[in-house]
């Protein structure tokens, strides 16, 4: 038999490279503005926090008769948040783990961890989408309702949050003597889908992150800023399919002020990795491993004034 490349056995032709390829991991942006709360064990599964409503101002002076003014009523509003349990697992046969040169269980742990964190993020996203107040973008020109986001829309939502006494989350990035940079004001944060990137880039006055005077206090998920809003993008940002007037997809862009929403974790139920070696789970012949993960989480809007869903079309497909 003549020897050529074509006659080499497969195991000679091929090398197994032990360095794994990267797995796509999504940006986790939806908890950026959340207040973390720990629910102690053995104290139920609903976390209640309360807020006392404002009292009326009293600018009228007492007259000389010095009669007591009418009293005011102090009202309290409670906000309840229920914690739920989330879990998943995979099953690997022992045949796989003892035959495979690759440490499969290690990869399983990594992928479970990724799925867990992305699930936590999606839970917050969907709760915000379900409950938050809505503002349609109307400043764009695409003829739909909502339109694509424009400068006037971000100004509107900033005005709404300011009117509602919402506090900024990030501090101003002042101007510096650097060519091509632009200062960024105190800002609310906006969490949105990466499908909105072209819309962001086209907005009048939009400042990309690389144009910030100082990028030392930015995140990799940040795309840029416009006046008093800084934008954080994620592949799993909220999109409502076919929901605009003309049937286009709508991006739900959550613009949040400080302390607008929270995430509750049960103290004894924080994220954990659970490995069961062969022999457990109805496995008398010790044939299967299981690797799982679980967490206990609740999420809710704590002040409806301070979180607005700015809805926009113009998404890339």
């Amino acid at each position, binding site marked *: 038999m003549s020897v050529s490349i074509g006659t080499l056995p497969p195991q000679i032709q091929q090398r197994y490279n032990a360095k794994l390829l990267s797995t796509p991991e999504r940006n986790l942006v939806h908890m950026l503005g959340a207040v973390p709360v720990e629910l102690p064990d053995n104290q139920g599964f*609903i976390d209640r926090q309360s*807020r006392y*409503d*404002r009292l*009326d101002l009293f600018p009228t002076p007492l007259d000389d008769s010095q009669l007591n003014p009418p009293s005011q009523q102090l*009202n309290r*509003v*409670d*906000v*309840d*948040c*229920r914690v*739920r349990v989330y879990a998943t697992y*995979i*099953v*690997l*046969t022992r045949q*796989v783990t003892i035959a*495979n040169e*690759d440490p*499969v269980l290690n*990869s*399983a742990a990594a992928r479970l961890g990724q799925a867990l964190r992305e699930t936590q993020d999606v*839970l917050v996203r*969907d*709760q915000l*989408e*379900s*409950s*938050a*107040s*809505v*503002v*349609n973008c*109307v400043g764009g020109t695409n*003829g739909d*309702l*909502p*339109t694509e986001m424009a400068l006037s829309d971000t100004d509107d939502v900033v005005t709404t949050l300011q*009117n*509602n*006494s919402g506090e900024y989350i990030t501090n101003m990035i002042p101007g510096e003597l650097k060519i091509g940079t632009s200062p960024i004001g105190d800002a609310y944060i906006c969490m949105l889908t990466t499908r909105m990137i072209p819309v962001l880039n086209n907005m009048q006055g939009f400042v990309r992150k690389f144009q910030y005077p100082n990028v030392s206090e930015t995140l990799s998920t940040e795309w840029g800023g416009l006046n008093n809003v800084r934008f954080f993008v994620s592949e799993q940002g909220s999109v409502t*399919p*076919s*929901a*605009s*007037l*003309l*049937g286009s997809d709508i991006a739900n862009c959550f613009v949040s002020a400080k302390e607008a929403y929270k995430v509750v974790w049960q103290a004894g139920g924080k994220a954990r990795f659970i490995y069961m070696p062969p022999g457990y*789970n*109805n496995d008398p012949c010790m044939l*299967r491993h299981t690797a799982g993960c679980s967490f206990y989480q*609740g*999420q*809710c*809007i704590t*002040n*409806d*004034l301070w979180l607005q869903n700015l*809805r926009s079309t113009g998404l890339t497909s």
Partner: protein
Amino acid sequence: MLPYSFIGTGSYTNAASALPATVALPAKPDLFLVRNLTGWGSGTGGPPITTYTAVANLESWIFPYTMAAGSFRQMGQSAVSVAAASLYATQGTSNGFTFIDSASPPTFAALAITTPFINATSWVVSMSNTGSIAVGDYVRVLNPTAMLQAGGIVAQVTAVSVNTSITLGYIASSVSAGASFTTNSTGGSILKFYRGKYYPKKLQVMHVTQATQAVVYFAEKNDFTPGQMVDFNVPTTYGMIQLSFLTKGNGPARVLSVTNSSTVSSITLDLDTTGFTAFAYPTSAASVGATSPPFCFPAGSGIVPLSGSATVPQSPPGTNLLDAFDNLNQFYMYIGSSVVGADSAVMQWEAYKADFGNLSNA
């Protein structure tokens, strides 16, 4: 060995003209059965188990991972009264079992609204193709020409005349209460979708009365509860702007009572709106490019009122835990018209899960 674990059962009774049913499940099943208890063992509607006719007494569904949504019947099972078995792929892929994870539901294509389009009073929506829309389904109204103020409204279906029309009765009730829709649409489309199950959810407001205890109407069943606090965002184009963002004033409004009938969805508030600007939807022309929809959204939990009283709380004061923010997503099985069972029959469903049905092949 892949043993099946029993994970749940239940029953439902079909109407005189059987309609598709949806049942909640505790987990994603690998085997699902529907059994006609009324006809079981009698041979009525076709002999049980051994052969299957168009009206079978037992329908089953096994979940292979490549199975198309809406597929039904077990592999190797015959669909008609013939001796030769056939594969599930030949058994039809519509109107069968469809597994639904409400956190990641299937999507549908929009269906055209056809002449005479949307009636602004009765909210009968003419559709020559109603697709799989059933009573209780959520639909979105898209681009209703000449009635653009209704664009994007999410409504629940209250009646279906197959391939003729659907009725959005909750909107019709709000019109009866004063909602300002006066002109029929001249086009548009309807998009069916599965609503997310996060609680509580914001709802588009269809109408608000001017009353000492305001009544707020919705286009779908609401899940607010007595004692719950709600707030609003009502843009100026809808009139009653005094409702917007009550939280920043003296606090959100308390829900006194809730109505969720087959055609009316409303809440009554401990809020006097007699001095407020009248609530009204803008005209179609005025709504173009100029408006956000009015929404009611959850704003907290309050003391449960006694029988809807504005002044008398339950004694001892009732703490409302029903309004806690929550994730109520669940698994469901949609039982389509081909497998839902015979008219008027009492049906039993059973769900099973394989212990290790999903070995990873890494």
